[in-house]
């Protein structure tokens, strides 16, 4: 059932597809224009960086302001620790990403394209560098590779813009948002590399083709990074709308017994494995349901691991990755991490559990970027799903729980 769309063509073991092979297999890249915006709208493609925002709408918001002077940032920063799909895509199909970025530039009226690739993703950086050198001079003249710093927030879109403008990859207060005023004050499209690669195929084969790839009303395919207690962790491409159970089967099945699934990565949330199994992995559907496929992380927690310990590690990581610009994020996440860690060690202070609930609600919506929101959404999912464990840890000092 594994879908091959972005990863159609040579086997992964063959490494990056060359420009010659790419062009021979897929034909010459069509030109991007306003009609492509309509095609993208009809295709139903949504962004794959985490926000699941409609790609056509996003391009249009930049196109409407560009006057030919916009900037495109292909976002391959991939700072989410559990995600590897963007670096894998850039390592194996760099020309799809570059095609998509150039199409975007033509469609929104941009002269300049920045390929923003996480510097820690060495294989992806090498692949993209080599790929760019293979392109015709007219492409090379427009596109520049820009290594992104290895922090969690570097891929946040205002942080990407800030990095280009000033060399500091921290989010800035919005508005203005990048599509209004971004690189050098110009309207800027910041689009995840997987979204761009999909656009490159939609431009060739059309919206009806893209829609036909999905299942149960969902459209297209999605790249996922499957990790945790599975037999074969890794990056896979599946039709949108297939279920978590189907994905886990593709990953060789669960190792041991699943307790919970972390869907969407550190910014996502825990879902009980019984509920997750039949959930359809459809970015649009999940978003409408108040959930999120995020950047496509599916990580399985088995029933041997201590959910409190795992959750404490994640919230601590998110606290460390705060850009330390906004007080509620910096101090709030630090407080949340410290209390969760004490509970995970079964050495809580009085009121730790109540504080977790209070602080999670208090921090939400109070950063310049959504980093604190993602972190507290994760925290709240942990508090909800692992409620018995948290309660036992909070009240369990020296008390038998049996």
């Amino acid at each position, binding site marked *: 059932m594994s879908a091959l769309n972005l990863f159609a063509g040579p086997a992964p073991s063959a490494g990056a597809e060359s420009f010659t092979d790419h062009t021979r297999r897929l034909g010459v890249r069509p030109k991007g224009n306003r009609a492509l915006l309509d095609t993208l709208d009809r295709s139903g493609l949504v962004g794959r960086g*985490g*926000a699941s925002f409609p790609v056509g709408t996003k391009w249009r918001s930049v196109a409407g302001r560009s006057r030919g002077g916009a900037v495109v940032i292909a976002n391959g920063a991939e700072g989410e620790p559990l995600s590897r799909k963007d670096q894998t895509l850039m390592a194996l199909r760099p020309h799809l990403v570059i095609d998509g970025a150039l199409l975007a530039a033509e469609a929104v009226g941009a002269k300049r394209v920045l390929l923003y690739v996480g510097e820690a993703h060495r294989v992806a950086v090498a692949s993209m560098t080599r790929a760019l050198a293979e392109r015709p001079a007219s492409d090379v003249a427009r596109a520049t590779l820009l290594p992104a710093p290895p922090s969690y927030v570097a891929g*946040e879109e205002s942080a990407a813009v800030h990095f280009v403008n000033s060399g500091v990859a*921290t989010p800035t207060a919005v508005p203005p948002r990048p599509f209004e005023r971004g690189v050098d004050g110009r309207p800027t499209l910041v689009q995840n590399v997987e979204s761009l690669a999909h656009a490159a195929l939609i431009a060739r084969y059309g919206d009806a083709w893209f829609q036909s790839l999905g299942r149960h009303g969902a459209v297209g395919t999605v790249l996922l990074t499957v990790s945790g207690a599975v037999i074969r962790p890794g990056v896979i491409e599946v039709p949108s709308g297939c279920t978590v159970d189907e994905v886990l089967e593709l990953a060789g099945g669960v190792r041991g017994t699943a307790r919970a699934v972390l869907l969407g990565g550190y910014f996502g949330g825990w879902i009980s494995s019984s509920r997750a199994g039949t959930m359809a992995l459809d970015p649009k559907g999940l978003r409408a349901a108040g959930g999120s496929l995020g950047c496509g992380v599916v990580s399985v927690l088995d029933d041997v691991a201590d959910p409190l310990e795992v959750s404490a590690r994640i919230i601590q990581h998110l606290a460390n990755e705060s850009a330390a610009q906004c007080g509620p994020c910096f*101090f709030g996440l630090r407080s949340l991490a410290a209390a969760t860690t004490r509970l995970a060690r079964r050495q809580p202070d009085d009121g730790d559990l109540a504080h977790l609930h209070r602080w999670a609600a208090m921090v939400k919506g*109070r950063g310049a970027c959504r980093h604190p929101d993602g972190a507290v959404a994760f925290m709240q999912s942990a508090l909800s799903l692992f409620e018995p464990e948290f309660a036992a840890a909070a009240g369990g000092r020296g008390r038998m729980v049996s």
Partner: protein
Amino acid sequence: MAQLEMWIDRTKCDGHRLCAELFPEGITLDDWGYPIITPGAIPPRLLPHAQRAVDSCPVLALALRRVARPSAPAPAPTATT
């Protein structure tokens, strides 16, 4: 007259707490001393208080802005949009 709301640049705010003293009707403090702003339009009778809070912020983190519905993409929670 256009309705006004309090806007804060969180990256500038250092938690000096003056705003909450001068405009308690619209600003309270969180457990770390940073302002929690009551969302929405500020009632006209409270605007002088709000303006004093804005004017007294030592790091110019506060501003009064016209209440506007964002017409363009508001990014959902994400690290890598």
